[in-house]
């Protein structure tokens, strides 16, 4: 038996619906017999009547409704059809959910699922990676699972967390990633994972880019270079200790992210390593992101817009020579 990243997300939701009667799912097309644009809630409406609800195309009100329900004892999961559309709900996520605990001492346990990242032909409005934007604002936990196991355990944990969680699931990994079985427990949220050990260079990344980095590490191993790949797992909180420990072993840092280049996760990692671990570095830290344009539609342009194994390898080779 094998299970995909997408199935793991569905199974995690089935589990929390089964185990916790405070949980309900709210989003466009999640209910009825449809089961969501990507089928992440397939069959759940039938299995859990009245708890997997179709919402109107009102992202702001969906999140607002989830906040109100969470304040009165529920554990809502909001599915955005695409991460890109969560921009319509920014106000509720950032200004209402994100400020609420600080202001009132009452936390808001909502989970907002963002089908994130690029896939071929999806264009500017169905491809975005918004983790950096959410991580910038106080009061939110931002998760970016890169494996089937993490997709499963981190979503279960997200629902259990008393604070608002933005759960960024990568659409490219939905069908491409498979595991033999679901884990019974995982690493806790907030801890980064060493996806591959190495001694020559640390590639710090998250979500789909973990797999591109692993491909590069494999390729370089054949040439005798050992690249360490750090999967951040959660971008907020950011596990600076694990990153610094990795850089202490390798002396070289390349940070890779699929989001736009200005600011963001890669900039944050480099800033932290530079301020706290400057003495550990043997070369200037480097980063690789998508280009600073909207995400292109045509596959030729799209492939050049986002980082991939080839681009990572190029950067890595240059950094290893320095």
């Amino acid at each position, binding site marked *: 038996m094998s299970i995909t990243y997408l199935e793991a997300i569905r199974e995690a939701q089935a589990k929390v619906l089964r185990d916790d009667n405070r949980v*309900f799912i709210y989003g466009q097309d999640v209910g009825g017999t449809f089961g969501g644009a990507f089928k992440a809630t397939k069959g759940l409406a039938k299995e859990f009547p009245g708890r997997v609800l179709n*919402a*109107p195309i*009102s*992202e*702001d*009100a*969906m*999140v*607002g*409704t*989830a*906040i*109100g*329900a*969470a*304040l*009165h*004892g*529920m554990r*809502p999961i909001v599915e955005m059809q695409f991460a890109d559309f969560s921009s*319509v709900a920014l*106000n*509720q996520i950032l*200004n*209402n959910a*994100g*400020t*609420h*605990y*600080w*202001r*009132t*001492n*009452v*936390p808001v346990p909502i989970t907002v699922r963002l089908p994130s990242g690029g896939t071929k032909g999806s264009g500017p409005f169905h491809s975005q990676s918004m983790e950096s934007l959410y991580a910038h604002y*106080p*009061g*939110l*936990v931002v998760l970016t699972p890169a494996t089937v196991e993490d997709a499963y355990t981190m979503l279960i944990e997200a629902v259990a*967390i*008393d*604070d608002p969680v933005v759960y960024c699931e990568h659409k490219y990994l939905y069908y491409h990633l498979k595991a033999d079985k679901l884990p019974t427990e995982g690493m*806790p*949220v*907030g801890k980064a994972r060493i996806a591959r050990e190495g001694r020559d260079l640390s590639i710090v990344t998250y979500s789909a880019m973990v797999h591109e980095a692993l491909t590069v590490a494999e390729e370089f191993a054949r040439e005798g270079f050992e690249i360490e790949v750090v999967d951040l797992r959660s971008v*907020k*909180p*950011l596990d*600076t200790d694990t990153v610094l420990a990795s850089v202490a072993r390798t002396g070289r840092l390349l940070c890779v992210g699929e989001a736009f280049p200005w600011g963001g996760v890669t900039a944050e990692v480099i800033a*932290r390593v530079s*301020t*706290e671990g400057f003495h550990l570095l043997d070369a200037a830290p480097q980063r690789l992101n998508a280009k600073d344009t909207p995400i292109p539609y045509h596959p030729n342009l799209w492939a050049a817009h986002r980082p991939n194994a080839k681009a990572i390898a190029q950067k890595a080779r240059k950094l290893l020579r320095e």
Partner: protein
Amino acid sequence: LYRGGLISGGVYVGRGQEAVSVACGMFLQKGDIFAPLIRDQAGRSAFGEPLVDVARTYLGSRQGPMRGRDGNIHRGKPLDGQLAMISHLGAMISVTVGALMAKRTKGEKNIVGLTTIGEGGMQTGATHEGMNIAAVEQVPLVLVATNNHYAYSTPNDREFACVDLVDRAKGYGFEGYSIDGTDLGACLDVIGSAVKRARAGRPPQLVVASILRLSGHGEHDDASYITDEIRQEPFAQDCLASAERVITERGLADAETLRQWREEAAAQVDDAVSTAQKEAAPDPNEEDWCAVSTRELVDEIE
């Protein structure tokens, strides 16, 4: 206190809106949800907010509900049913809807949620989404919209182009009612009935009240843009003066009783202010600077 520099930030009052607002708080019970906005001091007090919470929030006392982290009208006690507004208008409508859905799921009966908006806030996307989702979910919601004829300084003709805002009720699947917001009796009657209908399971209720804001947007604003013509309109009357006239005309209370009430109210306000003034202000060195409640998930930035 504001003019003396003892209050940081703005002060927002509900002059002209007291009759509408008090009626909003008056008919709510324990277990109900109230999501007031900027001009709802009367409604908050009627809902049961202690005056000392007002003073503590304006003065930033650590013992207040917001502990100096937020101020003035952004206060609330969400677990007691009084939601803490954010400044972005319309945002609290869907939050009220969600709270009512949670209560329905938990089997709480006879519940109602009331939230307020102005004619300015009615033009936001959040209000549109919130009203629509309220009707889709068929929650027992009352939305009281007060048209005070200015969004800060912008008059109605640059705010909306429909004949009457109450006409929107039908489009959303609400039941809509209009009131003269300067008439306390009408406010109590119409808003009270709307609360009763929502409680009884009727569709969401929209009440649109017409008044003139008898002050600036905040105490910093001299409201010089409010024209002399509009001040002559019937909706520009002071609801407090009208209410007082009706009370004395009908012999419900004499002038001496009214004077006593006023004195008692002033004494209560003085008490609340003097209590809050004795309390410590927030201390940045004692602040934990944590925006999430889960301590192990705090992001440590050097």
